[in-house]
């Protein structure tokens, strides 16, 4: 099992995300934003948190046009699995692999804390280690996590059970308390909270470990 973690100039959670994958048994290769292709045997791509390209223009907008993201979009188009965390979620929205956008937090403040979440669906390779309705907590750390989507888009997400996580105490103004969403084929997940920062006892809790181990199980079976 192999995970590729993308590194942009300004990424700062790439190594943390690699640790999350490694603890679940993945081999991890870091891939550079200028690379035009992914390693051949990759099972999942991680798009990490941080401030890619300094958040210039819009968060994730420049990264979305990088050579590696073209390769990631093709990989996802072939049914590949992709996990985008925080800035990675913003990048996946900007590449249109996921619907909606992430705007400036409604309170205008950078919010950094352990965030109470609810698992909104267990029907995905990312969330099958939880039960629907589970109350968990992952850390958040973002300034632009205010998820917005239009009425039709929200109705579609609900109808297709594609809201993966919701906030229990909305920290940023996100529509319908949405913290993370799935693609139509359920193989691409973007979320603002950081599962990779909750995988060891010293992190405060290990709620994120279930995501990486569920992925390992799903991808071994595949």
């Amino acid at each position: 099992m192999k995970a590729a973690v993308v590194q942009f100039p300004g990424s700062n959670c790439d190594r943390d995300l690699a640790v999350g994958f490694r603890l679940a048994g993945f081999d991890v290769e870091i891939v550079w934003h200028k690379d035009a292709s992914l390693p051949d045997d990759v099972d999942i791509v991680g798009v990490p948190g941080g401030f890619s390209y300094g958040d210039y223009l819009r968060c994730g907008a420049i990264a979305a046009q990088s050579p590696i993201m073209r390769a990631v979009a093709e990989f996802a188009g072939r049914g590949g699995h992709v996990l985008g965390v925080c800035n990675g979620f913003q990048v996946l929205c900007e590449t249109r692999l996921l619907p909606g956008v992430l705007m400036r937090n409604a309170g205008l403040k950078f919010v950094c804390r352990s965030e109470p979440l609810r698992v909104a669906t267990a029907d995905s390779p990312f969330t099958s280690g939880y039960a629907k309705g589970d109350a968990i907590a992952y850390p958040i750390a973002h300034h632009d996590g205010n998820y917005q989507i239009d009425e039709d888009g929200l109705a579609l997400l609900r109808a297709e059970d594609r809201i993966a996580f919701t906030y229990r105490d909305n920290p940023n103004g996100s529509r319908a308390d949405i913290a993370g969403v799935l693609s139509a084929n359920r193989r691409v997940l973007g979320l603002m909270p950081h599962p990779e920062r909750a995988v060891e006892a010293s992190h405060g809790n290990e709620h994120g470990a279930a995501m990486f181990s569920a992925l390992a199980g799903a991808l071994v079976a595949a």
Partner: protein
Amino acid sequence: MKATVTVMLKQGVLDPQGEAVKSALGAMGFDGVAGVRQGKVIELDLADGTTEAQVGEMCEKLLANTVIESYRVEIA
């Protein structure tokens, strides 16, 4: 030739930064500011012969996120 692209949040999209500027102006004693919308201006220095359609494509693909933003192009 030069082009000026103005990118604004679409009407109906909440602009938290504009709201914060509006309340700051009110707190400073400027009465009668009914609304503030904050956007961005991007100046492009272009090769002669660049068409407005090409600038439009730049806006669609990168300069604006048309899910929430609208843009206006002025070519001088």
